[in-house]
């Protein structure tokens, strides 16, 4: 402000509120709603950990093997995310070297594991690597030298295998980020290095990898957070061998009555703190806007040599992560029972019929679909406006923008299982007692995915380029017109991709669903756990396959609605 400017009143005409706050009311409302959704459960729950002079922490330390549990949580997070980063980066590199005939399909292949829900993949792996009756183990025992073994050679019910399977499940996420970074980067910079005489390997290590650092750091943060909150594999694989992590301990609490929310909050506290530290480190390491955009150069060069072995690597990855567990699921679903022999039995559709005739199971599938669709219908516009507010060129008041940024970050930093536990706590008591209704599932899903919806659409908006928006404003178009006639059509494909990914994540949602479900409100993931706990593995396989089929359908519908990329539109 210039020295001559008069000090202005806060209130009244020309006051601060009238000038700055009032025109922003819509953004302020948005921030308030997001803040309520995200902060309310987390804060309410964490308060419980500290009342009574923190007696909850005392109860936590009194839990048997709590030291081991914490250690397992951390080891699992570190090693599985490390495995995921290495695997995902390797895949991205391979995908960038695919020969033309298989390029399109090969680039998509590493995303296919996302179509198989974690519960289904883990179940598939149990069928393969269960020490006694796992099909793969049985096949391996036929090999010379291994004939004498009664079980093994692999035991899926071990920390090692929990890490390997979690790492494989997370590697697709790394691939998404790193490959996008690699694509955006173009090949001009590599071409320049090649012109300087650098070999392919030298180019990769001196140019490509350093430039990809933002993508890799971001991906590492994301998968570490997911690894920290990892729930599915430890729950399904750890129970047999008494391997526990903090999130499974929390889940066991919800199975007892009354639920000791204070203890759950105390268990979640270390995860929450570590999650926030990771997010802060990520921000610190990457700066503000650079978190998502890598060097972008439109490239006309094609410098990377194509390699057929790259396709082989990707094929192998797909075989191990997706095809084998799926085949195991299919085989078990049509076998009379999971027999533990390699003799091909008479195939039957008994389990399919049994599942499809079970009203409770079919209802749960429908609930899943409905809640996911309603969730997306809320999440897409919600996230889009949040992302819009984060754009530098929109005139959103800075504190409001910072608040929105925080509320879009928190749901990513807080593991789904912990968030689910918090949601169970706040929505099972006044003032908003919606536990036991379908609404609690919708609220849970919106809260969980708000961060992803915002971040993904923000990336789309940034990639679309703010100049198009500026051009619209310069033509005299107001915010609404600019939004509906320019930004929305230009972002259609990105929005559809966000919708597809959100559908996958919501339909597969397991950890939080398991926390907030009740006898009357079940989703496919939660009933599947019950069936699994009851030991009816053939029906688990059927449910897992239904999940895969519905996911594929959902993704196809989203892709169809996205249509062709507006930017590539021709005549």
């Amino acid at each position, binding site marked *: *402000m*210039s020295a*001559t*400017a*008069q000090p*202005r009143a806060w209130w009244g005409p*020309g006051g601060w509120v009238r*000038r700055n706050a009032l025109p922003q009311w819509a953004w302020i409302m948005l921030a308030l709603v997001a803040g309520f959704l995200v902060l309310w459960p987390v804060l309410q729950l964490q308060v419980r950990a500290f009342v009574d002079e923190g007696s909850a922490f005392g109860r936590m330390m009194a839990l048997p093997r709590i030291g081991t549990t914490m250690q397992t949580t951390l080891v699992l997070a570190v090693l599985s995310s490390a495995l995921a980063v290495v695997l995902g980066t390797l895949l991205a590199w391979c995908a960038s070297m695919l020969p033309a005939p298989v390029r399109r399909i090969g680039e998509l292949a590493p995303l296919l594991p996302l179509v198989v829900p974690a519960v289904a993949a883990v179940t598939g792996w149990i069928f393969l690597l269960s020490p006694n009756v796992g099909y793969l183990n049985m096949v391996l025992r036929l090999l010379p030298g291994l004939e004498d073994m009664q079980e093994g050679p692999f035991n899926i019910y071990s920390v090692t295998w929990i890490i390997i399977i979690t790492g494989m499940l997370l590697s697709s996420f790394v691939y998404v980020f790193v490959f996008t970074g690699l694509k955006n980067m173009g090949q001009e910079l590599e071409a320049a290095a090649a012109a300087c005489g650098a070999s392919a390997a030298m180019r990769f290590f001196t140019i490509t990898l350093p430039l990809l650092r933002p993508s890799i750091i971001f991906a590492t943060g994301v998968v570490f957070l997911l690894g920290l909150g990892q729930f599915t594999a430890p729950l399904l694989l750890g129970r047999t061998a008494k391997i526990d992590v903090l999130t499974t301990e929390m889940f066991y609490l919800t199975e007892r009555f009354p639920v000791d929310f204070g203890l759950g909050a105390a268990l979640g506290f270390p995860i929450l703190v570590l999650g926030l530290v990771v997010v802060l480190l990520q921000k610190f390491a990457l700066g503000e806007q650079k978190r998502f955009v890598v060097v972008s150069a439109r490239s006309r060069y094609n410098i990377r040599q194509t390699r057929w072995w790259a396709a082989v690597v990707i094929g192998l990855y797909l075989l191990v992560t997706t095809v084998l567990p799926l085949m195991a699921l299919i085989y078990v679903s049509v076998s009379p029972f999971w027999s533990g022999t390699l003799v091909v039995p008479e195939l039957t559709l008994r389990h399919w019929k049994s599942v499809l005739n079970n009203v409770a199971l079919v209802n749960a599938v429908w609930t899943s679909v409905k809640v996911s669709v309603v969730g997306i219908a809320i999440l897409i516009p919600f996230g889009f406006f949040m992302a819009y507010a984060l754009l530098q*060129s929109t*005139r959103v008041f800075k504190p409001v923008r910072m608040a929105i940024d925080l509320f879009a970050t928190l749901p990513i930093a807080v593991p789904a299982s912990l968030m689910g536990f918090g949601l169970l706590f706040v929505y099972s008591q006044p003032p908003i007692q919606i536990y036991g209704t379908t609404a609690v599932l919708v609220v849970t899903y919106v809260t969980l995915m708000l961060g992803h919806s915002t971040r993904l659409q923000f990336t789309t908006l940034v990639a679309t*380029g703010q*100049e*198009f928006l*500026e*051009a*619209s*404003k*310069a*033509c*005299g*178009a*107001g*915010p609404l*017109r*600019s939004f509906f*006639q*320019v930004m929305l*059509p*230009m972002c259609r494909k990105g929005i559809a991709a966000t919708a597809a990914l959100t559908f996958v994540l919501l339909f597969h949602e397991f950890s939080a669903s398991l926390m907030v479900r009740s006898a009357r409100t079940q989703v496919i993931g939660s009933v599947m756990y019950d069936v699994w706990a009851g030991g009816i593995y053939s029906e688990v396989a059927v449910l897992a396959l239904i999940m895969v089929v519905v996911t594929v359908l959902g993704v196809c519908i989203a892709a169809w609605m996205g249509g062709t990329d*507006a*930017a*590539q*539109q*021709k*005549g």
Partner: protein
Amino acid sequence: MQELKIEKLVKRYPGRDQVVAVNQVDIDVQAGEMLVLLGPSGCGKTTLLRCVAGLEDAQEGRIVLEGRAVFDSASGLNQPTHLRDIGMVFQNYSLWPHMTVQRNVEYPLRARSMGASDRLARAREVLEVVQCGHLAERYPAMLSGGQQQRIALARALAPRPKVMLLDEPLSNLDALLRVELRTHLRAIHRELGFTGIYVTHDQLEAFNLGTRVAVMNAGRIEQLDSARAVYERPATDYVARFLGIRNALELRRVDRGWSSDAGAVQGDLAAIERHADRMQLFLRPQALRLHSPTQALPQASHLSLSGGQVQEVLYSGGEVDTVLRFGDTTLYASSPAEGASFKPGDPVTVSFEASKALLYIDGKLT
């Protein structure tokens, strides 16, 4: 009448090392005038333009469009871009790829709630003005760079805005196309007589198109004058250097004459007598005449430097550029190719008319 008035405008980018991109700028643009902001990259010219458009928020000052303030730091007024009634052409065109040319051009008319038939007629009209009537149904991706630029211009012109803002509109085009479009733009401006601000780093473009030219340096206006005045009388040594006046000599007063690193300046010294002990002498290469040391020098108002040597002779089509060494100083002369007879290594004396010498004391033209 003043169409656009910028008063004491300041735009800072916050940060550890704060950058003042626009520093106390005052500009009046008259109706029908095309004001060119000229300067090297980073001088603040685009930021200034974007402040006028409302795409950047300035911290201090006032911007008045047709007598109505659109930005005023004193009263906290900051009208959003879409209410400012401007037309803007972007460096990379920014045509929306999902709309046809026709829809792109109609867009600002829609935004101003113009009826469908008027819209159609007006869009056709401006498309004809930019000679692109036949492209109406195409999509931007199907157009060449030059065509896209014309459409972007048509889109900005369509609503007859109060002021046209052009941000380096020709810099993404190749040289020949640039010349063609420049000529065309000049004709359109003469025909329609719109008020405009045009940002460029290309001085030829500036002189061709500008009713007046403002040369910017580090967020400030160094000189604001007619194209001719800027070219012939660069107000500061910065402007002289930016315009590519390559021969610069530091003159020091010695006894009754002036000396420089290139040697003593000979001739009628009264012609360059100034009340200072030091000054800078700028000379365009075309102002220098070359003589062999034995040759007689021109008379009267001519000044000369002797004891030089020809270092390089570069033929550049029609003209010959000669690089000369005077001690540690390099001078550049440009003369018609006919009659040029100097070879590298030849001893040489240069002379110039005193009236062609641009003299700066403390960086200001005297």
